[in-house]
Structure formats: C-alpha cells, structure tokens
C-alpha cells in the first residue's frame, strides 16, 4: 500500500504530535479544568459523591470568612523585597565577574552552588546558621558580647520573615547572577573601549551602556521574582515549618487542601494565584513587546 506524499507528510505530523498532545491533555489541561471545577464545589479531598456545586462561594469566602488565608499573601512582600536586593547584588557581582579578574570562575561557581543544592540541604544549612546556637549568633557574640542571643527564626514574630527572605536570597542569587552574567557577556568590549576614549568613567559606562542593554533581562528576572515571591513554599516550610507568622499563601493552600480537607477553598486559592501570575506575565509581555527583543537573548 502506498500513500501520496501529501498524506505521508500529514501522517508523519500526526504521529509525531500524538504523544506530546496526549500528555499535554492528560497532565496539564485536564487537571487544570478539574482545578477550576473543584474551586466551584465543596469537595472534601476524599469523597467525590458528596461534593456539591457551590458557585462562587469559595471565592467570596476568600475575601470575607477566609480572609486570613488571603492575607498571608502580604508576606510575599518580604520575599519581593528580598528578591530586589538579590537582583541588585547579582547584577553587581555579575558586573565585577565580567571584568575577567583572576578567580572569577571560582567565585561564579561558589555563588551558583546554593541554587543547584538540594532544597532540603539548603534549608538545613540556613536553619543551622540562624539557630539560637548557630553560626550567626556566634559571630554576633564576637561583637556584642558573650551573652548575645537573638531568635532569628522565632516564627511568632513577623521579623523572622526577613531571615527567611535572606535565606531565599542566598539560595537564588546564583540563578540571577548566571542569567545577568550571560547578558553582560553579549556586550562587546569595543563599546566600552569606545566609551573610554570618549571619557566615560566606570559608573557612566554602567548606566549608559551596560544597564540599557541588560534592562530587559533584569525586567524578566524581576517578573519571575514577583511570581516566585507569591509562590514561596519550600524555604519557610523547611526552616520554620511554615508556622505562625511565617506561613505563606502557598503553605496555607496546602494546609487547607490536605490537612483541613477543604479542597474547594484550596482550589479557589490556586486559581486566584494563577490569575495574579497570568496578569504579571501579560504585563511583562506588554512592556517588552514594544521594545527590541534581541537584547533579552530570546528569553521573553
């Protein structure tokens, strides 16, 4: 049996697409639709037969009866502030590493290690560092006297979120560093030479050449930080078990869905988060679409 060329081409396309499209439907689209459906029910995480359609009630509850759950989103601001610090530090380090000083490769590797480290290991390292008898207090005692002891991780206190945000900076700095460093390397040395001949100092070269070239890459990383700070989960969970003041929206979502068996409410929380993330990404696209896309290295 022979097919004509056109049919064969179509058959090939169909066969190649069959597996990925099936996986997309089964693993992505179906669960997403199910999530939407659950968010409109009072499903108790166990018994489908007893789930009833409740309309918008779960969503309304998120802003009234369950307002405490939604308010945990405010804690994302700690992490957002942290990631701004992280971005500035990463850009600073990347610019220094880009000077091709001796040892830059070693430093780049050292700064990148926390990112590739297993999440649990990274969490343990930072918990040990911040404990009452941890390294940070030991160092502080050198300056503040032997009696100094500060509970950096007291989950009853809001300030412990700063400690957690710092842990997050330590862990993800390497990622920002590598991305920014890559963008910096795309800037030809000639441009800096030309600027030097024209009398620009290092500061002027950064603001007039480096920054405009990498600004879209920085914007992309900032948007990823916004999304990331909404979704913070593992860092507080591993260090303070997400207790008290350190519970984030994502941690509350898991608690609500699996411990309190209120899958409907948890699903509504997930949809709410999804909506915010989508808004952030649409904003990014609108900002970047009008600009030159070459500079982002095709990242956006």
């Amino acid at each position, binding site marked *: 049996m022979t097919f004509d060329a056109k049919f064969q081409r179509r058959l090939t396309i169909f066969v190649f697409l069959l597996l990925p499209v099936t996986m997309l439907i089964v693993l992505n689209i179906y669960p997403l639709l199910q999530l939407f459906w659950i968010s409109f029910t009072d499903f108790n995480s166990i018994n489908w037969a007893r789930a009833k359609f409740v309309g918008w009630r779960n969503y309304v509850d998120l802003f009234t009866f369950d307002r405490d759950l939604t308010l945990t989103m405010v804690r994302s601001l700690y992490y957002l502030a942290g990631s701004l610090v992280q971005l500035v530090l990463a850009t600073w380090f990347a610019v220094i590493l880009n000077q091709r000083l001796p040892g830059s490769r070693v430093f780049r590797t050292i700064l990148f290690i926390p990112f590739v480290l297993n999440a649990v290991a990274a969490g343990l390292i930072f918990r040990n560092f911040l404990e009452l008898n941890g390294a940070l207090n030991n160092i502080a005692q050198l300056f503040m006297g032997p009696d100094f002891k500060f509970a950096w991780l007291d989950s009853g206190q809001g300030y412990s979120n700063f400690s957690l945000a710092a842990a997050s900076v330590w862990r993800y700095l390497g990622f920002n560093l590598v991305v920014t460093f890559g963008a910096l390397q795309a800037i030809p040395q*000639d*441009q800096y030479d030309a600027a*030097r*001949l*024209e009398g620009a100092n290092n500061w002027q070269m950064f603001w*007039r050449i480096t920054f*405009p070239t990498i600004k879209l890459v920085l914007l992309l990383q900032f948007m990823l930080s916004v999304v990331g700070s909404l979704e913070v989960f593992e860092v507080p969970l591993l260090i303070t078990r997400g207790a008290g003041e350190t519970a984030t929206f994502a941690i509350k979502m898991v608690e609500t869905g699996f411990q309190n068996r209120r899958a409907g409410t948890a699903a509504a929380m997930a949809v709410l988060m999804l909506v915010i993330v989508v808004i952030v990404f649409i904003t990014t696209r609108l900002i970047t679409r009008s600009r030159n896309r*070459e500079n982002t290295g095709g990242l956006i």
Partner: protein
Amino acid sequence: MSFLKLENVSKSFGNFKALDNINLEAEAGAFVVLLGPSGCGKSTLLRLITGLTEDHEGEIHIAGRRVTDLDPKDRKVAMVFQSYALYPHLSVAKNISFGMEIKRVPRAERDRKVTEAARALQLDTMLHRLPSQLSGGQRQRVAIARCLVREPDLFLFDEPLSNLDAKLRHETRVELKQLHQRLKATTIYVTHDQHEAMTLATQVVLMKDGEIVQVGTPLELYNRPANRFAATFIGFPQINLTPGRLTPEANGGARFAGAGMDLLLPATAFGAPVTAPVEVELGLRPESGSLASGTPHQSITVDYVEPTGADLYVNGKVEGRDTVVRLDRSSGVAPGDKVPVQWRLSDASIFDLKSGVRL
C-alpha cells in the same frame, strides 16, 4: 617636529613580544597606514596610541605633547573600530553626541555639532534611527561622525572596511580618501589589505612579527621593497622571484645568471655597487614583462590565463618555477602556448638569497 612620534615602543604579553622597539614619525596631515599580516602587532600599536592598552615601554608624543602616561580620554584621539562599536540602544544622533553628553557640553552646541557632522557624512536623514536599522556603510559613517565631533588631534581606524562587501568597500575607501583630503586630519589606519594601503596612504608602515619592515610612500614600497617580505606582501599577483648568481661588471652594474636567463642589470638597480659574486633572488613584477619582439629573456609555458578585462594575467612555468606576467588583452595567449617574454630590467629588485635584504 613631527606630529606623531613613537620612540622605542615595545609591548609584551607574557612571554610574547607583540611589538619590538618601534620608532615611527608622521607629519601633520599624513595618512599613515599600518600594514601587515594578522598578528604582526599593527592593532596592538594602534591601541597603544589610544592608551586602551597600557604598560608598554617607550614614549608616545602626539601633537608635541607627551601622552605616554595619559588616560585615553586625555590624548585627544578618536577611533573607528572594526565593529564600529556603536551603542545599539541609542539613536544615530545620540551615538554621535555620546562623548559630548559625558563631558556635559551644552545642548545647543551638541546639536550644532551633530548636525554639522551629520551633514558632512550624509547622515542628516537618519539621525533618529537605531544602528540596527542602518546598513554597514551607514554604520561606519556614524562611527566616523562620532570621531569628527570630538575634533581630535589624531584619527585612528582599525580595519574599518573589513566588514563591508566588495562594492561598498570600494565606495567607502573613496569616501575616506575624500574626507581626508578635505579635513587634512592626521590619520592612522590599520589594515592587512595591501590594496587599501596603496590607495589610501601617504605613508605606509609595513610590519611583521612586531617590527617595522619598511616605511615609505606606497610607490616607494612597491618600487623599491626593502626585503623579500615587503616585495611579496605588496603587489598582486605576487612578484616573480628567480634565484640565481650575481657577478659584478665593470660599469657598476652586475650580471645575473639563473633560470635560463643571462642579464646585464644596470647600476641603478642596486643600492650599493656589487663588489663580489653573490647568490641572489631577482624580483620582477608581472607588469614588468611584455611579449618579446627580439630575443626573449624567458619563455613561459602557459598553465592558465586570467583575463581581468583590462589585461591578461598569464600564469605559467619557467624551468618548473611559477611565473606570472601581465600582458595586453589582445595578445591572444592560450594554455599550452610557449610565450616569449622580455622584462623591463630597470624595475628589477634584487634580494640577497640568504638574508632576503634588498641589494
């Protein structure tokens, strides 16, 4: 007092000696071309003059000022880079006024200078475009305009034509030449292309392995190359080199014998009279040959013929040695022919076989 003066300039990168004891002087208004194969140190020399490469030995003077220890920005030099080094996020106008903005030149003066430079280089209609929206030739003109507005003592060009296609390269070369004739600005220009050097320079500095081989006008280098390297590097097709033996003759001239030739060379062909027999190479440019009417000097067995339109380059062999001769396009030579050739001996260059130095 010469305008640009380099004294005993040397530069090493680790164990590699990039420049070895360079001494060079150029007059005001000169168009100096640093010519040489890649890796000969010509770009390094240019960067030393700008100050972008530091830590060298020797002294550099520009316009009567010692600039050896000055910062690049204080040397009053402007450079067109091989890549043009335009700032991709800035418009043409902003690229041109970049240096003035750094120096906080008042806006009115900035605008006036940008307009002037743009008019001089026919960029007036594209001042608001980004570099990515310009052709290669236009980008280069922006790079030149950026230099113009700085009113430097010295213009520096680092292989500025190498990124252009053949036609544009020719056009831009003509523009550069006209610009130089108009502005009379002292210019140092780096290239590995002998054709650019010949057509643009008032003074060619031929370099090899970090040393200067010869300095002179393009015609001096072409007619009286200082050694075998200079003779073969300049001129296309390459000069024909024939080994042989030179014996002195009574009138200050000498007799060359080799490759089937027995020639009496006039005294004018030599820098100093030949006093003893010596093994040499006889250099004859392809255009020094012509179809022999009487007794030929040599007879070429033709391998192939390259018509250039105006002329024919006849490539063949004499006693197994590759030889090229330029003949009139009407000479009707075909592969396989045996062509009798006579050479204009007054054009001959003779090099010592061992040292390669011109006699």
